[in-house]
């Protein structure tokens, strides 16, 4: 349950940051390139290393290990798929549709809400799905810094040389990833307007 909580909370916060940021970046191509690059670099940092870096920083507020560093790491890892897919999705809305929306007298915000976001929905949701599955995996490693979750099962299994325990942990993590992915696929269908 700890695992689901951690990943769920991280994804919600990631969407709240990533989607608006992705939308904003469509108005600023130069900034978009830099931001996407930064998050690409973050993606390449091994999770263990990222946790390691955060321990001394967050220790200054007494949160060096446990939930907070794990949460921050997950949010950071989620940004690339979410921002990039939102950015691409909005950018790839048919220019004719955007032109029509403009010509009919929609404000920028109306265009975004009524036309651009709905039409970019399949791509945005695909980004969220990627981020979620990724986070379920990374979340397991967060057990090393005491964030609990299914990772602790694997951890304990390794330290006790208990193969069964390791396997159970790994299989449960995989099942969780598959189930959540399917669940999100259902939501993706629900949230995508019928006409697309």
């Amino acid at each position, binding site marked *: 349950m700890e695992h689901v909580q951690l990943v769920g909370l991280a994804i919600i916060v990631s969407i709240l940051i990533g989607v608006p940021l992705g939308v904003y970046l469509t108005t600023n191509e130069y900034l978009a390139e830099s931001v996407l690059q930064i998050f690409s670099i973050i993606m390449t940092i091994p999770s263990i290393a990222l946790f390691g870096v955060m321990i001394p920083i967050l220790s200054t507020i007494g949160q060096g290990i446990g939930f907070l560093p794990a949460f921050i790491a997950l949010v950071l890892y989620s940004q690339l798929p979410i921002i990039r897919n939102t950015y691409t999705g909005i950018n790839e809305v048919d220019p*004719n549709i955007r032109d029509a929306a403009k*010509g*009919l007298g*929609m404000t920028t915000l*109306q265009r975004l809400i009524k036309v651009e976001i709905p039409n970019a929905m399949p791509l945005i949701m695909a980004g969220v799905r990627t981020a979620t599955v990724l986070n379920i995996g990374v979340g397991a490693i967060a057990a090393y810094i005491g964030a609990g979750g299914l990772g602790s099962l694997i951890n304990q299994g390794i330290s006790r040389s208990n193969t069964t325990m390791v396997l159970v942990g790994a299989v449960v993590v995989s099942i969780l990833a598959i189930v959540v992915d399917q669940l999100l696929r259902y939501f993706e269908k629900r949230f995508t307007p019928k*006409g*697309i």
Partner: protein
Amino acid sequence: MLEFKNVSKIYNGNKKAVDHVNFNVDEGELVVLLGPSGCGKTTLLRMVNQLESITEGDIHLNNKSVKESNKIEMRRKIGYVIQSNGLFPNMTIEKNVMIVPDLLGWDRKKQLDRFNYLMELIGLHPDEYRKRYPHELSGGQQQRVGVARALAADPPVMLMDEPFGALDPIIRTKIQDEFLQIQKEIKKTILFVSHDIDEAVKMGDKIALFRDGQLQQYNHPFEILHRPANEFVSEFVGQDRVLKSTSLYSVKDLVDSVSLTGYQKAGSVQTVQEDTSLRIVISKLLNQEAEQLAVEDTKGKIKGILTLDLVEKFLYKQIKETPKRTG
């Protein structure tokens, strides 16, 4: 109604897309902006609703500068139709058509009535299409819906950017005819971009012909065809311009101008309706489908016989006798 005053559009400091254009459009007129691709006609159209900025000069809509108008409010009062229809794939046909009334905050009842009226106008059954999505419709139907959407809030002015350009020729002719019927009823002031001289002659009350951003001639189709202002215009309308001009007339125009040969009941003759285009009549006669055609009025009564000689006489009379008109 719509005045272009010395309008220019300059890109990147030197490229003139539109070059000192001056002309006026009267209320209820359909003016075709015609010219080869890259002549600035679409840019000029988009300057009216400020999708493109005006570099020099001004455009006045109802005596008010479009530069000074609130863009959003103004656009809602100008119907806009584009070639690729631009329907929103995420919205039902009803939502699409009612987008402007919705932005303007019309109540449900008023929207419903308007939707039903518009769908009847474009010849689609309101209840059958209400809940469907654009991708479920054929190209022709989508384009009709695009027209309905532009008409939704009953704007006095419509901008149409090659609205029927992407349709296949058969559907295209049909929709052009339908649209002319609709225009007879609604009498909007329309700017209609086209690169097709035939379409321009058929649709336009007047034609504005452009080349490299400059207005070459602005006049009635008849004048453009018979009295081209310069070399370019005459080249653009083509050497078969007299043939093209035949689509300006119906059989009725001919009947009113020259007298038909008397009709004797002898064997079977092909008949044509009075509202048939003269172009089709000529084609039929030349095609040896018939040497003569019987003209039928709306009640099915035969008024007389039409031959190629009569058509020739009529056209000759038109060209010689029509007084010169100015745009």
